[in-house]
């Protein structure tokens, strides 16, 4: 028996079937959590915001166009929620010590990869919230400048300036001598 596609699950979710929406959450929770983690850099906050994202998405399910893909939509909802979260609380991010591990590589390569991704995450965490979200939408969600401008409701010129300045800061941060 083939697994139901997203569209069928979403139709069932609209009817109030929580199990169908639970399956949708299972399918997209990791990617949504990673969006939140890249922006918030704190596991507990990222998990809370990921859950909040799915609650919001459920509330807005009737406005979702079933012909579109659910994944990109819910990840955009997540990015916006994280931005609002950062702006509303003006949080001072406490960075997690947790770092990425890849068990398939040798211990030396794992340490190297963890250090590299740790540096990238630290560099991302040092960016102002608006820059972080623009980087997230461009580099991880593969959105165009125009789509980002629409999503964040900011001028195209701001998208470009945020993105270019963010990259400049990231480059300075990543390539600065220790």
């Amino acid at each position, binding site marked *: 028996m083939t697994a139901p596609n997203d569209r069928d699950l979403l*139709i069932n979710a*609209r*009817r*109030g079937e*929580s199990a169908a*929406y*639970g*399956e949708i*959450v*299972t399918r997209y*929770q*990791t*990617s949504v*959590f*990673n969006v939140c*983690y*890249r922006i918030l850099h704190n*596991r507990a906050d990222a*998990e809370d915001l*990921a*859950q909040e994202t*799915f*609650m919001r998405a*459920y509330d807005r*399910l*009737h406005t979702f166009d079933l012909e579109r893909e659910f994944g990109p939509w819910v990840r955009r909802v997540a990015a916006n929620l994280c931005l609002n979260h950062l702006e509303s609380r003006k949080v001072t991010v406490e960075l997690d010590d*947790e770092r*990425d591990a*890849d068990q398939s590589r040798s211990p030396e390569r794992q340490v190297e*990869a963890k250090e*590299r*991704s740790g540096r*990238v*995450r630290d560099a*991302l965490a040092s960016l102002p919230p608006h820059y972080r979200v623009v*980087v997230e939408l*461009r*580099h*991880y969600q593969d959105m*165009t*400048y125009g789509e980002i401008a629409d999503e964040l409701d900011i001028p195209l010129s701001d998208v*470009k300036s945020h*993105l*270019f300045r963010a*990259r*400049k800061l*990231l*480059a300075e941060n*990543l390539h600065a001598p220790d």
Partner: protein
Amino acid sequence: MHLTELQLNEYLDNESDDRVRIETHLSSCDECAARLAALQALFTEIESLPELKLSTDLAARFVPSPNLSPQLPRWLTLTAALQAVLAVVAIIFAAPFMADLLAPLTASRIVPSWADVMLELQIAFVVWLQSFQSIRLPELSSLAFNLPQGISSEILILSVIGLLFAWGFGNWWLLHKKNSLV
């Protein structure tokens, strides 16, 4: 003249309208080619972040509120609102006719005893059974307009009853099929 940061960024983001000219310049300018390579390396570095695993299953934590009712399609909600408006208008228009029909019943209203009520019910039941012998719909004497030639008040009443049945059936069908029409 070297390429600007803006041009290099837009080029790598596939947002440049000037790709041919930029590529021509890059093929002959080592400095700009090196800057482009550095920017490309930064892109790779940013995008190479591995995905982290969740420490908890959000699907298990996600419990939709039990009082959340299934979301009806907007057109169905609008249909219900429209029907409510039409019903109010119909009641306003029907009031004089209903008063006309109920007049015989309300004219001789008294407070009866239980025995009288039972007797009345018994008589009404017998009359009701007898009425089947000569079914006749009441006359609408207070119509505000003249009925067209060939349309009696009986036909009008039967039409209204038919419309009510169609209306009821239509709503039953809409509610029954709403899930497959979402």
